[in-house]
């Protein structure tokens, strides 16, 4: 292997940090992402957690990964495979090597490739690299020993010292990509603000890792830079994941509407972080209630909306099953409610930490009766903010429950986000009753244009009324079993949803002359966009129509879908969105690409499949 300190400039690079779930790989990955974002690179990250909280140390099931894609220009996905794989132990190498490109470099801690650890990872020999037939560049560094030496005088105990191994690996990666360590130092100082000693030790170890790479030039042929080519717009940025962005969107919408934000919830992977995030913000008046079950989470949110708050509930697919009766109640009560579904693998408990798009039909239809409900599917981690804001605005202005769909991939994945200015966001105006209506008002009177009923909240004099789950007379609001009235009310509820204005779906890429239109919805936007880019770079005429507003569909849906010779609907289920489109667009017969692996799409798989369709 040549030792060469040449510096090569890259357009983009994918780094995957992996180790035991207690090894701090998420932190190392986060810091590296932020350092890169700070210099203006675009980032897209994906943490890959094991399902077990603490699997036995060193075991194959206990490996935790964090992948980040760094680009000189825009990056849309965390990348299929990595250019650098950090494997802190044999189990990580064994399980994560499949995510490494043939040309990728691998960093291992040789101190952890001892007989005991190799055995835990079910290696047969004492040479893991050889046993796996790995031909990649390997930076084999005695990380554990060097961290121990580095912190020998720190006064820390052995266990605490070993927890700093991740920072050594981070330092080494920073050297490999010529990253400035100042940002990392500041982040650690911030993180350990109450333990300055710990911050110092971590910073020292990062520097040691960096210096080790620099002094030995390790066993790689190059170090790299990723010069920012496509400047992001000016502004202040932060790194944000989808769950946090969703929580922020709800907070922003409640503030804009001047309403109390109420979240009724029950812990469930991968949605719990939304509850965690909102629970922190009591200083903004946010009220979160961890309820006795999913049912109460949703039911209490309906109660909160009745009382005049913005009622929200957060869950994942299994929770939607339980919430469906209270969601349905909100449909007939015609009260605002935002139901967040952070999708995971199903059915039943399924794959709790993995990502799918298999809840679409459940969200659209999983209720008794004709129960129309708007569905918005966020398309990226940062879009979760806008999608959540839109969901709250729609719920409040149209007096309806709205399902906001995200998924484990965009909920946990993060990207650089330009801080929004709430003043630039559209106003939220719920259809409150006015004092002129007093004495001449009934709860199911509607705005003739929008079909939306007016909102009178308890505590308002002159508007005492009852709502309920029984069918109501369309005029008086009294219980009614009249056949014509029920038919009318069924239509009124449907029309109200159909009339909700949503923006047209945008066609990206070769919108005028594409041979193939790729269609998707929700969290797959990045992968579909990247696959389109790759095909266009190969000279093909390809466009992408990616849907965020699923119900109601944008007005231009049919014209877009009918415009192109070939259309492929790609989704992480067995064709739910394609089926929905077929139901709504006459004579629509697309190709389908369906994959349900619990993992994000691989762009390479998409390109291969789309190219086959393209060439047919």
């Amino acid at each position, binding site marked *: 292997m040549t030792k060469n300190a040449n510096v090569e400039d890259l357009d983009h690079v994918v780094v995957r940090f992996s180790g035991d779930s207690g090894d701090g790989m998420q932190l190392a990955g986060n810091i590296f992402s*932020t350092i890169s974002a*700070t210099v203006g690179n675009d980032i897209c990250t994906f943490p890959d957690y094991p399902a077990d909280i603490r699997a036995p140390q060193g075991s194959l099931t206990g490996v935790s990964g964090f992948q980040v894609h760094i680009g000189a220009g825009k990056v849309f996905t965390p990348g299929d495979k990595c250019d650098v794989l950090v494997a802190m132990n044999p189990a990580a190498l064994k399980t994560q090597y499949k995510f490494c490109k043939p040309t990728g470099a691998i960093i291992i801690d040789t101190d952890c490739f001892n007989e005991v650890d190799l055995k835990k990872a079910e290696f047969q020999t004492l040479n893991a690299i050889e046993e796996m037939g790995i031909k990649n560049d390997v930076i084999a560094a005695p990380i554990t020993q060097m961290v121990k030496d580095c912190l020998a005088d720190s006064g820390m105990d052995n266990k605490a010292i070993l927890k700093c191994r991740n920072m050594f690996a981070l330092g080494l990666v920073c050297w490999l990509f010529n990253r400035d360590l100042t*940002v990392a130092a500041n982040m650690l100082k*911030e993180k350990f603000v109450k333990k300055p000693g710990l911050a110092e030790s971590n910073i020292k170890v990062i520097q040691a890792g960096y210096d080790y790479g620099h002094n030995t030039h390790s066993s790689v042929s190059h170090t790299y830079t990723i010069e920012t080519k496509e*400047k*992001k*717009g*000016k*502004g*202040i*940025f*932060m*790194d944000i994941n989808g769950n946090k962005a969703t929580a*922020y969107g709800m*907070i*922003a919408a409640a*503030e804009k509407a001047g309403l*109390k934000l*109420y979240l*009724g919830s029950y812990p469930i992977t991968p949605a719990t972080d939304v509850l965690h995030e909102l629970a922190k913000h*009591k*200083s*903004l008046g946010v*009220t979160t*209630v961890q*309820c*006795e*079950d999913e*049912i*109460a989470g949703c*039911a*209490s949110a*309906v*109660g*909160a*909306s*009745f*009382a*005049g*708050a913005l*009622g929200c509930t957060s869950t994942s697919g299994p929770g939607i099953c339980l919430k469906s*009766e*209270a969601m349905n*109640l909100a449909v007939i*009560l015609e009260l605002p409610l935002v139901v967040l579904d952070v999708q995971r693998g199903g059915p039943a408990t399924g794959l709790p930490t993995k990502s799918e798009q298999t809840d679409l039909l459940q969200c659209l239809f999983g209720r008794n009766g004709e129960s129309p409900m708007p569905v918005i599917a966020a398309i990226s981690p940062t879009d979760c903010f806008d999608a959540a804001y839109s969901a709250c605005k729609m719920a409040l202005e149209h007096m309806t429950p709205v399902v906001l769909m995200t998924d484990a991939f965009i909920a946990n994945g993060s990207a650089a986000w330009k801080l929004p*200015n*709430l003043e630039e966001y559209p106003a939220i105006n719920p259809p409150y009753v006015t004092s002129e209506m007093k004495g001449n008002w009934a709860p199911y009177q509607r705005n003739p244009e929008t079909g939306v009923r007016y909102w009178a909240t*308890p*505590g308002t*004099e*002159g*508007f*005492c*009324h*009852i*709502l*309920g*789950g*029984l069918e109501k007379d369309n005029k008086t609001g009294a*219980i009614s079993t009249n056949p014509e009235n029920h038919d009318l009310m069924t239509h009124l509820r449907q029309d109200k949803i159909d009339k909700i204005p949503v923006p047209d779906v945008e066609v990206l890429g070769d919108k005028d002359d594409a041979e193939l239109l790729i269609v998707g919805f929700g969290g797959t936007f990045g992968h579909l966009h990247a696959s389109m880019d790759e095909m266009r770079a190969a000279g093909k005429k390809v466009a992408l129509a990616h849907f965020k507003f699923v119900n109601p569909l944008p007005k231009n849906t049919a014209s877009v879908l009918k415009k192109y010779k070939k259309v492929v609907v790609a989704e992480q289920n067995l064709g739910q969105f394609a089926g929905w489109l077929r139901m709504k667009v006459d004579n629509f017969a697309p190709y389908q690409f369906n994959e349900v692996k619990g993992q994000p799409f691989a762009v390479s798989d998409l390109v291969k499949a789309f190219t086959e369709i393209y060439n047919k």
Partner: protein
Amino acid sequence: MSEYTAKDFKKGQPRWCPGCGDHFFLASLQKAMAEIGIAPYDIAVISGIGCSSRLPHYMATYGMNTIHGRAAAIATGCKIANPNLTVWQVSGDGDGLAIGGNHFIHTNRRNIDLNMILLNNRIYGLTKGQYSPTSPRGFVSKSSPYGTVEDPFRPAELCFGARGHFFARAVATDAPGTIEILKAAQAHKGASVCEILQNCIIFNNGTHESVHTPEGRAKNAIYLEHGKPMIFGENKEFGLVQEGFGLKVAKIGENGITEKDILVHDAHCEDNTLQLKLALMEGPDFPIALGVIRDVEAPTYNDAIEEQIEDVKSKKTYHNFQELLMTNDTWEVK
């Protein structure tokens, strides 16, 4: 003096069967609300599903007739979102203790400031006569033609087991007794459970026969009053005394028992041991306890959450969304 009369809380024509306990309870609730004097527009009455859950339709307040079993959960969100509202939650024994049992116990445990009415006729009426979780063992119904083989819940036990702080009981046909406990429930800050013993004239006629009439109650019930000796009987000839770990009915004047030996009711006692014994008394050996059995002050969830919000507001430096954004690690692109 309240500026309201029962009429101010009345709406529509109830459609329950003639003689149903719900009619009696509704009238008492409207009278109690008039005496309490809170404006109808500051009151929300929230029910689930079942015969008794139709009640909000006949109230001139804000109301919601929701879904089966979820009234307590919906009322919880309503109260927390707007603590200024007075929230009454109305459920039957099926709604409240079967499908809604989980919400019943957790609402008590959390101590949400709700008035929780449990209309107990020991039967499913709206589905036409199946046994309920309060039907006695062996109860014959359409769904238990050979008698049930399960024990019923005793609502007080559930309430106390969930660390409830208020439990009272009245017979629906006894308007003064009902109004009294409803007023006490309103006065109590926190979850207040009122068990209303009521008859289902169609499917479970006579279920509370022994205390249905004034004469029956004089003989078979004891009206508990905080601070008063627990004396009962047609001629006030009996009293409750403690014996070992239990209660015993003693006849005053016999075996040297005088009025001074009779236990004095303490509804405010934090330890619920004796209150539970009172609540579980049943004939023929014991009278059925009516009135306020337990009424103990405790912090409410809704107050505590408001206090926490104020406390955090005073400590945190960010108070709006834009300020929140700046609490993150950020960088600037110039």
